[in-house]
């Protein structure tokens, strides 16, 4: 693959067989993924697309071969039907995306409360120690611009058009759950973002917004989708899964179609129906 890029993780010899059905969905896959690449995965139903995402995310542990990550990188995953805690509210879930910041703010507030305790304010040593601790936290908060956390969350929720923050999760529709889970995930800003059918059940404006956001996303994005506009507008690579093999192509959906119909033409001199339909889609 390309030259000037950093590889963020590699799969070597990855295979997956479903024992019950005795069906091999992934066959000996060797692929390296670049930091910042935007990759769309194509394939038939049951071709192992979701399985591949789950293996990369670490959720699927039983497979052969190795997935090796560069140290220190984080991975985030949006499933087709995200499981959210029904006892929480929308804001609770979204806040989990910024859990680190929330923890620092909580710590800061706790120290503030302690200044009011007699045993603390009558003891100069204790006071000095706490003030020093608070100063460190304050620097962290300033650096992360965490004082404005509430505003930040509000903007993110507005952009993804989630329901109001105090809405209980148990009242949400499937589409609303996906929106809330996506909001949490995007706030986490993982280095590798794995998305299973991200545009399903999103309205047109949200899809436009998501396309724009992902185009500018710093990290690697890997999306399983049938949404050909999304593949055309966002993907810089297409990874086709065909009978267990992973075939990478550098380019968006239109360029993939073009090369695919040419490749099929080379493979068989008599043009197949499939090749004709590929050509006609580009007309």
């Amino acid at each position, binding site marked *: 693959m390309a030259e000037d890029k950093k590889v963020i993780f590699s799969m070597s010899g990855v295979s997956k067989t479903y024992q019950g059905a005795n069906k091999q969905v992934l066959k000996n896959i060797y692929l390296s993924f670049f930091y910042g690449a935007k990759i769309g995965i194509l394939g038939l139903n049951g071709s192992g697309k979701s399985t591949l995402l789950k293996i990369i995310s670490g959720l699927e542990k039983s497979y052969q071969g190795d997935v090796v990550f560069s140290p220190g990188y984080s991975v985030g995953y949006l499933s087709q039907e995200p499981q959210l805690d029904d006892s929480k509210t929308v804001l609770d879930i979204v806040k989990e995306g910024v859990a680190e910041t929330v923890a620092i703010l909580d710590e800061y507030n706790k120290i503030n409360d302690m200044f009011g305790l007699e045993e603390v304010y009558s003891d100069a040593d204790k006071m000095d120690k706490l003030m020093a601790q608070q100063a460190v936290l304050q620097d962290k908060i300033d650096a992360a611009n965490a004082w404005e956390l509430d505003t930040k969350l509000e*903007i993110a929720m507005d952009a993804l058009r989630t329901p109001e923050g105090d809405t209980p999760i148990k009242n949400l529709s499937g589409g609303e759950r996906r929106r809330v889970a996506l909001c949490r995930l995007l706030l986490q800003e993982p280095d590798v973002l794995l998305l299973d059918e991200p545009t399903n059940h999103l309205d047109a404006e949200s899809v436009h917004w998501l396309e724009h956001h992902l185009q500018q996303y710093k990290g690697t994005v890997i999306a399983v989708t049938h949404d050909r506009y999304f593949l055309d507008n966002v993907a810089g690579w297409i990874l086709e899964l065909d009978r267990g093999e992973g075939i990478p192509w550098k380019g968006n959906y239109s360029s993939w179609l073009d090369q695919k119909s040419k490749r099929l033409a080379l493979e068989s001199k008599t043009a197949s129906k499939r090749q004709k339909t590929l050509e006609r889609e580009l007309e």
Partner: protein
Amino acid sequence: MAPKGRHAKSKARLANYDKLMNQDQNKLDEKLEIYIPNGPRLGTNVIESVGVSKAYGDKLLYENLNFNLPQAGIVGIIGPNGAGKTTIFRMIMGEETPDKGEFKVGDTAKIAYVDQSHSNIDPEKTIWQNFADEQELILMGGKQVNSRAYLSRFNFSGSEQNKKVSALSGGERNRLHLAMTLREEGNVLLLDEPTNDLDVNTLRALEEGLENFAGCAVVISHDRWFLDRICTHILAFEGDSQVYFFEGSFSDYEENKKARLGGDLMPKRIKYKKLVR
């Protein structure tokens, strides 16, 4: 895709019902991965919505809805969930009634529609049994077609075709509905979200089948590529009980909407709001 070319294509389609109707069906079946048999000849009165209003409780879905489906039209229905898209199909089929107004269905219209409550689907029978009535060869468009081969185009492998309908996932069920609707030989097809559960190869094949189908198709879909490739018209649920009937592709419609409603009217919904500031 070249939008100009598409535009000319859908214009040509609207003007050429007879040409579509007279295409050699054997050649079509050879050329296409998903062949959709034409129904009987369709007159110019297809389905007309005349002043239709419908509400659920205190939620008004639409008021004074008017549109007239063209003979060779492919109409994409778009809009958010819960706006009443499927309700239009149910009212056309007489499964629900409008609060005001009516749907006038032309004498020659033969509507093909399969939904969850379809009485012809026996949950205790397999996909293939339901689809083909246990016949290896079925008649489609006056020709004999291998029923298992046809089903396989909807991504049902041989063994999957023997699954009982009661055990199907939502996606599998939708694909079965699609296959059953297409084989009914209607001249008006009502398709409810056929695109959600299809891979790009099958989507492409369905698009070509519809392009060559002589008749009218009404399709509820979110797939922008699909809509752009085949639609002659868009019926858009735009919120606040407003429904807009537009002649042109999905991209044309989006431009029209921008020009009509303007960016200023929806500053809150402006497209590229940042996730963080």
